[in-house]
């Protein structure tokens, strides 16, 4: 499995991210009962990327007893396993052994993408009808007349009915929804155009007329549906990639019953007063206070603090924080509904309500366009009725106007640009969840960054590593290698690989909540941990180091840690500033680290000690001042601000709630994703305006012809197809614009690179 197990290389390194496998109970909770004694579990495995991976995974899983079926889906990077109820097979352990990171993926019962299936079927039906009608129309244009022409028209009508009824329903429904709410969108003129063209053509056919527009209306429908389907498929792809990311909030908790027995219960059953066990490496499921044990908790996602906080009996802990070193027993003080997490969700809802509804450029264009077109058609009708006095001819001309102006180009132009933009972003590891986000991103003038986990990697690193004696660092790393605490991992990363002259230390153990302890050959006791524990006899001031290395209670070295700025963060900020955007940092952390990061990356302004509500207030303050802000954040404390911002972005490592609130999610380490997304959005907006301008100029030429009554069905079919192709071709230019060398790499390299980026999250 050497070629294709991206996780395997990471597993060999010391700094594998802390990952606790979900317990059997959690797997059962996330599975679906299939009946007949079988369960189905879905696992997200971001590292799958070739045939050998598929083969290895399926073979290994099928070898497990009780597993009946294992099927890899490479497109979504998921594995679906069916197993016999009873004993849970070691699915995740098996995958980890093969070198793949895997995590549970919740199956929502019966949830398949209905909408996409419906769209594809609609495209198929419309395509079938359009192809056949076009063939018949060609022979009519070529001169078929009399009974033959009538026959062909009747067959065309027969083919058009199912296409317009089944495929067209998508547009009618959307148009009706808009009209009912007193708005218009692009689908209103489309629906009216389709219905009138069909009605007139049917009348023409019945009265042995020469001109029927079946071909134009059905091929218009086909083109529009293709655009819409591509758009939907792209967004669906982004959404499924986002939901593949690891779920951070626990699904249940191990509770201690009154008789002392332990049981795993779903989160909804954990009430205030329940005692919950949280082992090291698990997320704390509810707000509570510690009643037993001592440990340290990582609050980075919740408060934005970068250094872990010690917690012992009596301390309060918040849901969503990560328990690092020792097991804790917690007395729940709030039900999950009353927890910090739920409070955040409520704050988000309020923030979202406060934000004005954004209207798509296409819909704004339609609001101007539809009345214009409809009044032009009406005036044509009245005009010809007055001039010629022939109501049949007047109606026919008016409908020709409607058909020729049917906003084919408009309906296709905008989604095509968005599809191309989403693809470009996807190649750069940025997932776009919705088309309007792209338009909103192009409008921003301010970028607000969170510190921990956004401007920084969220991983601690040793400060002033060059001033520490390498031999002492090597000794510290001997102890640190046995712990998964963030401080220990930072020491390991900073330590030289080859250790020479360090004393051999044996019987190393971790004292939870305190640090590491070991005994050297000469009987000396080495400790690496909190100063108050490693140096029991000394006084402790406030400026003491985070971690000390001590020998028999005497200090050898002190270490301080801080969060490192993301690679390229400075360059990213410079590019944003060069584009004329203001960049500021909002953080929940203490002023000192915030100022340091702000200086490092070159942010214009910073604010520290911000609570979630403060962040929302800052963003609505910006909005009230007429500024349009992009919020980039990852923590639970950022989630309300993400919802309040004009547009928002989150790294893949963000808390679930924030990732779901954000419009964009970026998968790679680099903060350059922010300027890249912004540049693509600006470019996409230019193309959208170009397409709209094209559609307008097309109408300037076509409408007078139609009003004069010179538009034949042949001319209509050609004009509509050409204008559609022109806007599609213009949209495609986005895909070829200034490819940078990384994203222009061979498909394979790009795909595996993306897989790796997913794997690291």
């Amino acid at each position, binding site marked *: *499995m*050497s*070629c*294709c197990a991206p996780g395997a290389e990471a597993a060999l390194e010391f700094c594998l991210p802390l990952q606790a496998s979900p317990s059997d109970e959690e797997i059962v909770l996330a599975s679906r009962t299939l009946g007949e004694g079988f369960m189905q579990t879905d696992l997200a495995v971001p590292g799958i990327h*070739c*045939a*050998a991976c*598929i*083969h*290895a995974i399926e073979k290994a899983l099928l070898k497990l007893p009780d597993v009946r079926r294992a099927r*890899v*889906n*490479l*497109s*979504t990077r998921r594995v679906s396993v069916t197993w016999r109820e009873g004993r849970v097979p070691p699915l995740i352990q098996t995958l980890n052994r093969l070198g793949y990171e895997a995590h549970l993926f919740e199956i929502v019962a019966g949830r398949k993408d209905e909408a996409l*299936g419906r769209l*594809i*079927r609609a495209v*198929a*039906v419309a395509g*079938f009808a359009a*192809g*056949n009608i076009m*063939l018949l129309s060609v022979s009519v244009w070529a001169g078929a007349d009399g*009974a*033959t022409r009538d*026959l062909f028209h009747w*067959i065309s009508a027969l*083919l058009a009915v199912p296409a317009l009824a089944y495929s067209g329903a998508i547009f009618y429904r959307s148009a009706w929804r808009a009209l009912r709410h007193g708005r218009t969108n692009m689908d209103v003129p489309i629906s009216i155009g389709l219905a009138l063209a069909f009605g007139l053509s049917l009348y023409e056919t019945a009265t042995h007329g020469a001109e029927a527009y079946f071909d134009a209306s059905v091929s218009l429908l086909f083109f529009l549906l293709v655009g819409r389907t591509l758009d939907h498929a792209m967004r669906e792809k982004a959404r499924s990639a986002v939901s593949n990311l690891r779920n951070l909030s626990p699904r249940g908790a191990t509770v201690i019953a009154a008789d002392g027995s332990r049981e795993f219960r779903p989160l909804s059953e954990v009430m205030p007063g329940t005692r919950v066990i949280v082992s090291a490496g698990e997320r704390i499921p509810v707000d509570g206070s510690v009643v037993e044990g001592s440990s340290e908790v990582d609050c980075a996602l919740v408060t934005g603090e970068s250094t872990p906080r010690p917690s012992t009996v009596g301390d309060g802990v918040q849901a969503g924080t990560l328990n690092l070193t020792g097991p804790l027993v917690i007395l729940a003080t709030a039900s999950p509904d009353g927890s910090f997490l739920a409070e955040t969700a409520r704050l988000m809802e309020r923030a979202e309500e406060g934000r004005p509804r954004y209207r798509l450029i296409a819909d704004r264009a339609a609001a101007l366009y539809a009345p214009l077109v409809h009044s032009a058609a009406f005036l044509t009708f009245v005009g010809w009725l007055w001039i010629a006095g022939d109501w049949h001819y007047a109606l026919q001309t008016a409908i020709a106007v409607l058909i020729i102006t049917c906003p084919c180009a408009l309906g296709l132009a905008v989604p095509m640009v968005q599809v191309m933009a989403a693809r470009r972003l996807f190649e750069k590891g940025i997932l776009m969840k919705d088309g309007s986000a792209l338009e909103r991103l192009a409008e921003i003038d301010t970028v607000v960054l969170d510190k921990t986990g956004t401007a920084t990697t969220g991983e601690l690193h040793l400060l002033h590593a060059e001033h520490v004696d390498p031999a002492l660092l090597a000794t510290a790393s001997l102890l640190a290698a046995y712990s998964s605490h963030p401080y220990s991992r930072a020491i390991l990363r900073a330590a030289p690989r080859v250790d020479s002259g360090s004393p051999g230390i044996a019987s190393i153990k971790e004292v939870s909540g305190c640090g590491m302890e070991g005994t050297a050959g000469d009987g000396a006791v080495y400790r690496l941990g909190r100063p108050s524990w490693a140096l029991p006899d000394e006084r402790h001031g406030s400026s003491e180091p985070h971690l000390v290395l001590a020998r028999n209670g005497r200090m050898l070295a002190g270490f301080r840690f801080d969060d490192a700025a993301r690679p390229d963060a400075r360059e990213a900020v410079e590019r944003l500033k060069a584009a004329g955007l203001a960049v500021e940092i909002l953080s929940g952390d203490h002023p000192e680290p915030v100022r340091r990061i702000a200086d490092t990356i070159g942010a214009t302004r910073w604010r520290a000690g911000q609570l979630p509500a403060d962040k929302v207030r800052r963003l609505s303050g910006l909005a009230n001042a007429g500024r349009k802000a992009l919020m980039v954040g990852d923590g639970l404390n950022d989630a309300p601000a993400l919802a309040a911002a004009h547009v928002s972005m989150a790294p893949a490592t963000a808390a679930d709630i924030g990732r779901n609130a954000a419009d964009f999610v970026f998968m790679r380490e680099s903060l350059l994703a922010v300027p890249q997304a912004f540049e693509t959005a600006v470019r996409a907006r230019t193309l959208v305006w170009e397409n709209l301008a094209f559609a307008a100029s097309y109408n300037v030429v076509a409408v007078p012809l139609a009003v004069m009554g010179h538009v034949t069905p042949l001319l209509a079919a050609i004009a509509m197809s050409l204008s559609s192709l022109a806007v599609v071709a213009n949209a495609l230019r986005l895909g070829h614009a200034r490819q940078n060398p990384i994203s222009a790499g061979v498909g394979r390299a790009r795909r595996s690179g993306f897989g790796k980026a997913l794997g690291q999250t």
Partner: protein
Amino acid sequence: MNNLFFLIPIALFLGGIGLAGFLWALGSGQYEDLDGAAERILIDEEASAARPSLPRGQEAE
């Protein structure tokens, strides 16, 4: 004119078969993992058992 009475139904029938086939393939889930289908052709199921070759993955390196 007469041959139209045969040709048009035949053309529509054949087109209809194509459409029905596509809808069937869609319904039976054949479009759910296009990337996987492209790669799976490279897995030779029986060959590794029948012939003592290198385990998969090592060959590919």
